[in-house]
C-alpha cells in the first residue's frame, strides 16, 4: 500500500515522560476512509497514543517513532506546522464535551472560528456553514444553539457540537476518544449514529477509541487491542471478535455481554479478567499479561512474545488458535 492511500501509518510509536513509557512501540495503518477500533482496559495507553499522534500530549510527555499522514511525518513537526493540520486534515473528538468546550464563548463562535481559521471564510459564510453543520448533526433550532453557551446545552448536544467541530473541515482522519462514555445511555446510540453517518458522508477515516466492543463491531472494519502500552492483537473486526488469538482479547470478549452469553438472571455475572493492569512503573518481565493469564508458561514469564501473523496478528507465545509454541 502506498502512503497516499492511507489516512495514517503509525510505526513504532513510543510515548513517554522521563522513565515512564505509556506507549511502547505501537504500529498500525488505517487506509483512507477505513475505520479502526482501539480497545483495552483503562490505563493501557489508548489516549496517549491518540494525543501523541495529534501532538497534544500533556507537558513533559514526548513522542518517538513515525506517524505518516498526508505525505508528512507528524512526529517532529513544530507546533505551528501541526496547528495547520489539526482540525483540518486530522481532528479529534474528546470524551467529556462539557470540559472540552470553552465555557465563556458561544458555541457558534467555537465552530465558526475553526472554519474561518482553516478555510479562510468570511464571518457570514462561516456562520452559514455552521448552521448547515448543525442541521447535519440533527441539532434542533440551530440558530438558537449557535448563540448558546455550552452550559445551556445538554450533554448530547454538546458532544454533537464537538463532532461538528471535528468534521467541519472534512478531515482525512477523525480520532474519537470514548466519544460517548460521558453521555447518558439513552443518547449514546443517537450520538454514535450521527458520528457514524457524518464520517461516512465525508469519506473520512476513523480511529475509534472505546471500552465498548459492540460499538466497534457495529461501526469499525478493523480493531487493535492494547495492553500495557502495546498492541497485542489486531485484525479485521469479524476475525478478531469471532476467533480471538491473544489470551487477553479472549478474556476481554468473555467479560462483555453478547447475544450468546447475555443473561437476564440478576445474580449472574460475566467472568471478569482476574487481576489488574500492571502499573507503568512496574511492568513484569516477558509477556506483560502473564500474571493474569491462565495459559502462561515459563517462556511467557521471561520473553516478550513478538507480534506475528498479519492480517490477523497477535503477540502471544500460545495463541488460542494453536499457531504458536505448545504451552
Amino acid at each position, binding site marked *: 500500500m502506498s502512503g497516499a492511500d492511507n489516512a495514517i501509518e503509525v510505526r513504532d510509536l513510543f510515548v513517554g515522560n522521563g522513565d515512564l513509557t505509556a506507549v511502547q512501540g505501537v504500529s498500525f495503518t488505517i487506509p483512507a476512509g477505513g475505520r479502526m477500533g482501539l480497545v483495552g482496559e483503562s490505563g493501557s495507553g489508548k489516549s496517549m497514543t491518540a494525543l501523541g499522534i*495529534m501532538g497534544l500530549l500533556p507537558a513533559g510527555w514526548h513522542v518517538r517513532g513515525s506517524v505518516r499522514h498526508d505525505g508528512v511525518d507528524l512526529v517532529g513537526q513544530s507546533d505551528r506546522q501541526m496547528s*495547520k493540520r*489539526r482540525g*483540518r486534515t486530522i481532528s479529534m473528538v474528546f470524551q467529556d464535551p462539557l470540559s*472540552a468546550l470553552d465555557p465563556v*464563548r458561544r458555541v457558534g463562535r467555537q465552530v465558526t472560528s475553526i472554519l474561518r*481559521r482553516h478555510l479562510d471564510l468570511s464571518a457570514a459564510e462561516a456562520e452559514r456553514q455552521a448552521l448547515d453543520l448543525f442541521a447535519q448533526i440533527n441539532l434542533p433550532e440551530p440558530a438558537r444553539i449557535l448563540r448558546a*453557551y455550552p*452550559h445551556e446545552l445538554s450533554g448530547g448536544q454538546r458532544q454533537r457540537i464537538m463532532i461538528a467541530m471535528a468534521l467541519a473541515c472534512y478531515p482525512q482522519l477523525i480520532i474519537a476518544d470514548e466519544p460517548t462514555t460521558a453521555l447518558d445511555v439513552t443518547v449514546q446510540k443517537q450520538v454514535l449514529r450521527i458520528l457514524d453517518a457524518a464520517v461516512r458522508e465525508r469519506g473520512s477515516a476513523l480511529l475509534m477509541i472505546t471500552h465498548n466492543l459492540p460499538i466497534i463491531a457495529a461501526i469499525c472494519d478493523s480493531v487493535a487491542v492494547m495492553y500495557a502500552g502495546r498492541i497485542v492483537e489486531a485484525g479485521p473486526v469479524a476475525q478478531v471478535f469471532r476467533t480471538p488469538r491473544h489470551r487477553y482479547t479472549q478474556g476481554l470478549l468473555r467479560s462483555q455481554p453478547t447475544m450468546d452469553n447475555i443473561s437476564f438472571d440478576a445474580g449472574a455475572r460475566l467472568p471478569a479478567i482476574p487481576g489488574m493492569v500492571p502499573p507503568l512503573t512496574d511492568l513484569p518481565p516477558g509477556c506483560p499479561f502473564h500474571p493474569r493469564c491462565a495459559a502462561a508458561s515459563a517462556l511467557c514469564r521471561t520473553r516478550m512474545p513478538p507480534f506475528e501473523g498479519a492480517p490477523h496478528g497477535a503477540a502471544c507465545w500460545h495463541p488460542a488458535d494453536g499457531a504458536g509454541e505448545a504451552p
Partner: protein
Amino acid sequence: MALYIFRRLAFFLGALVASSVAIFLLIRAAGGNVAAIVLGRDASPDAIDALATEYGLDRPLAVQYLDWIGGMLSGDLGRSFRTNESVTDLVTSRLEVSIPLALMGLTLGLLIAIPAGIFAARNAGRPSGAFVGLLSQVGIAVPVFWAGILLSLLFGVHLGWLPTGGWTPWSVDPVQALRSLVLPVLSLGTILGAVMTRYVRSAVLDVMNQDYVRTARASGMTASQALLQVGLRNAALPIVTVIGLQMAELIGGTVIIEMVFSLPGLARMILANVAAREVIVVQSTVMLIIVFVIFVNFLIDMAYALLDPRTRRGR
C-alpha cells in the same frame, strides 16, 4: 442577568448596613462615654455633660446611629470635637493623596503581575520561569516599608532624582505632586505585583491544563494562540477575584507607605485622630474605607457577570 445584578446589589446594601452598625457599636463599646474620653481624665462632670448635649451624645444609640447615617448619606461626615472642622473637608483634602496612591499602586501591581505571571506559567519547569517565581517570593517576603525605605534611599538620597517624602498639593504644582507619588507608588506597586504574580501564575497554569485549551489546539490554534485567545479569557475570572482579595493588602500597604514617605493621606489622618480620640472622625473615615472595599467587591461581582456567562443565570 437582571436577577443576578439585583441579588448582588441587595447583598451590597446589606453589607453596608451590617458594617456600619458594627463600626458604630464597636467604637461606642470601646469608647464608653464618648464625651468623657474626648475631654480626658481631668474634665469636670459638667463639662462632660455639656459636650454630650452639644453633640447629641446623650440621645439613645439608635437615634445617634440614624443621625450619623443620615449625615453620611447627605455627604456630611460630622465634625471634629476639638477643632469643630467638618470631617468631609478633612477627608477630601486627604483623598487627593490616598486615592491616586492606591489606584496607581494597584495598576502598577497588575501591570507587573499579569505579564510576569503568564511568563512564569508558560515557562514553568524551566529556569526562566523559576527565576520569576523566585523574584515574586522575594517580593512577598520583603515588607512594604522596607521596599519604600530602600527605594527612597536609592532614588531619593543616593541619586537625588525624586523627593523622599512630603507632599505638594495638585492645585499648587501637579508635576511636583506626581513626583512625590513616584516612589510611594513604585514601592506599593512592586510589592503588590509580587504577591499577585503568584496568583496569576497559578490561575494561568490551571487554565493551561484545561480540556478546552486542548480543544482549541486540536482545532488549529498554536499553544500560544490557545493560551492568549482562550486561556486568558478564562483566567480573567480567578485574576479578578484576586484583585478583590488584595484589597486588604492594598489598604494596609497604603497606610505604611503614607508613613514611610510622610504623605498627608487618609491613613495618617485616621491614626492621628485615633490618638486624639476623635471618635466621630475615626468612625466616619473608617466607614468610608469600608464603603470603598465593599464597592470594589460589588464591581468585581459585576465584572464576573460580564466575563462568565454561567454567572448570569444567577447563582
